[in-house]
């Protein structure tokens, strides 16, 4: 039971470098999300997708881009990493809105020096 898988789990970047976080889910879910978690700030939504080929901005989208070329994958990109992007990133997916549960990945810890 893979569920939601995030890669990589840990990464250290230098300011200005780029990277991509990959989220893969095997539950055939339509909705996928990227959140960041910072101490004292809870989880904040970066971008989300309600289906293959769609993306939308969340609460804190600046400095990030996303793509959903395949239904099972949701990629989060940092084109030019900044220290303010040091965080733990969580991917989540769900079959729809409403009362449905979000299923989360284990998180990816990113440090930008």
């Amino acid at each position: 039971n893979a569920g939601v898988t995030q890669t990589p789990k840990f990464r250290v970047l230098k300011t200005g470098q780029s990277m991509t976080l990959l989220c893969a889910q095997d539950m055939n879910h339509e909705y996928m999300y990227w959140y960041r978690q910072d101490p004292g700030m809870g989880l904040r939504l970066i971008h989300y997708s309600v289906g293959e080929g769609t993306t939308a901005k969340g609460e804190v989208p600046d400095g990030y881009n996303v793509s959903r070329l395949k239904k099972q994958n949701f990629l989060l990109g940092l084109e030019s990493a900044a220290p303010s992007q040091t965080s733990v990133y969580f991917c989540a997916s769900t079959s729809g809105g409403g009362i449905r549960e979000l299923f989360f990945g284990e998180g990816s810890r990113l440090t930008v020096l």
Partner: protein
Amino acid sequence: AQTVTQSQPEMSVQEAETVTLSCTYDTSESDYYLFWYKQPPSRQMILVIRQEAYKQQNATENRFSVNFQKAAKSFSLKISDSQLGDAAMYFCAYRRRIGNEKLTFGTGTRLTIIP
């Protein structure tokens, strides 16, 4: 925009006792959904309990129950017979019913269980 407030950054409780975590939210909607998620040290987010706003009856899941006060926009979580495995960060979350793609989280409450 909807906001979710958890005013208790940290709470502690003796093992086997009962603890209540508070959550308030701000919305102009009348129909929505509320959730409590748990994040243990493993970082894995786990759904604890959920509530539909149009249901007056408070949700219950084993030792976990909620006190949903719609008029006061309050959604507290009660944990009975606290166990060591309940130690975690607890997040309250809100989702609108219409245009309900996004889940908005509070800042979390860290719960410590004292043996």
